């Protein structure tokens, strides 16, 4: 990769800059900087901007395109705050507060045996996993899509490995069937596996789901795993509610029972998940960081 590749929107330069800024910036030197960085990326991260605008057209039917550009700016602005705060937590371990919505399900998840946490590209999922590991003293395995730039991938791995000291282990969904077997074994050993279930990345197996009255492709892996391992699937979202404050939203687990038709069982799980996802995204669209087109045209 050329030296200039590091300056690409997903290049390593920005990640390194964020890490540097977190160590160097005083608390009160974030707001205006984050605003200007959002302006910068709003123009230069054109594919992400267009994807958010396209997704919002489905999430908010009848909305004006011009307004959706402003909403896309708001989404990118929230994303900037979220990644900055995740870096603050990771690098300098500053104080954060959180509120739990659906505490009974979170307690059940923390106390129970192997389970799948199904989440979305919303709020700070890295922070949420670290929070969970810290609260329940349990290791959590996060499945992530690999970074497109090799240097960025290396940097993210190193950062997350550091977070791993706090009970978060990261797997990348590039190893194909091998990863599936690893995750199945982890579930059977009583571990918690966290997967993002709102968009397809890296050619993983997919299933059609109905979301906001449109067809969306979501990964079928979580449902296959849940069915085979007979592990409950907990929908869980981390939404930013203010400066260094988050909401942990946990919904009733999806339990898949084998009925004889694998396809039907998986489709039922996907339908239950998409219904929860739709409800949460509808109320927090400004924190849905799905920077690729989700809906089929």
């Amino acid at each position, binding site marked *: 990769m050329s030296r200039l590749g590091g300056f690409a929107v997903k290049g390593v330069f920005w990640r390194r800059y964020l890490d*540097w800024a977190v160590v*160097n*910036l005083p*608390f009160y*030197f*974030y*707001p*205006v*900087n984050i605003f200007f960085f959002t302006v910068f990326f709003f123009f230069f991260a054109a594919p992400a901007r267009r994807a958010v605008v396209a997704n919002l057209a489905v999430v908010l039917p009848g909305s004006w395109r011009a307004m959706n550009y402003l909403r896309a700016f708001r989404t990118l602005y929230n994303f900037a705050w979220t990644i900055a705060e995740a870096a603050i937590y990771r690098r300098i371990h500053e104080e954060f507060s959180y509120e739990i919505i659906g505490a009974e399900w979170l307690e059940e998840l923390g106390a129970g045996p192997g389970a799948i946490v199904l989440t979305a590209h919303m709020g700070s999922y890295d922070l949420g996993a670290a929070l969970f590991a810290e609260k329940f003293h349990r290791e959590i395995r996060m499945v992530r899509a690999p970074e497109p730039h090799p240097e960025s991938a290396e940097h993210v791995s190193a950062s997350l490995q550091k977070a791993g000291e706090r009970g978060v282990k990261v797997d990348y969904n590039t190893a194909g069937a091998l990863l599936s077997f690893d995750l199945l074994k982890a579930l059977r050993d009583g571990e918690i596996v966290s997967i993002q279930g709102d968009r397809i990345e890296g050619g993983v197996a997919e299933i059609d789901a109905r979301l906001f009255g449109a067809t969306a492709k979501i990964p079928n892996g979580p449902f296959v795993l849940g069915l085979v391992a007979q592990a409950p699937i907990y929908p869980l979202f981390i939404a930013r509610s203010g*400066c260094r404050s988050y909401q942990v939203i946990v919904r009733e687990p999806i339990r898949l029972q084998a009925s004889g038709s694998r396809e039907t069982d998986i489709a039922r799980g996907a339908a239950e998940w998409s219904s929860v996802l739709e409800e949460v995204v509808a109320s927090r669209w400004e924190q849905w960081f799905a920077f690729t087109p989700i809906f089929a045209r």
Partner: protein
Amino acid sequence: MNQPESPRFYFALPRLLAHWRGGSSIRAEKNSAEAWAAHLAIFAITYLYFARFIPDGTSWWSSGLMSVALAFLVWLFWLLMLYLNSLILKLLHGMGLLRSLPVRRGQGILIVATTAAMALALVQNGSFAGEIAALWLTAIAMNLIAAGILAFSNGKAARL
């Protein structure tokens, strides 16, 4: 991480006021209103300082364009200043000076000192910009006094 709590502050002045009203005077980095107010004030002082160099007598669209461009230039100026400050702090730490001073605190001191210098230059001119600058200098002075009172009452080192 913990459960939500009553408002807490970063700067010494609101912490002292909170203390007098029976609240907590422990420093917290969680008050976005406080962060916005401080950062907008620093940005405004810097903007007004550099706006003096926009030549008079240009057309309205030209000065409008320069005013918008200046906002971005002020942002870039501070990115550069933060980097230069980090080099200054690294040099000082390398020389064995101020080693116990955390980098972010050192940056804060240099940022406030730079802004205060700009505010002093603006105050000399009078005008509306001078009034804003005077407000900033008053706020810094009150914050320093509050830090002193808090340090005296808590028996801890003063922090801005």
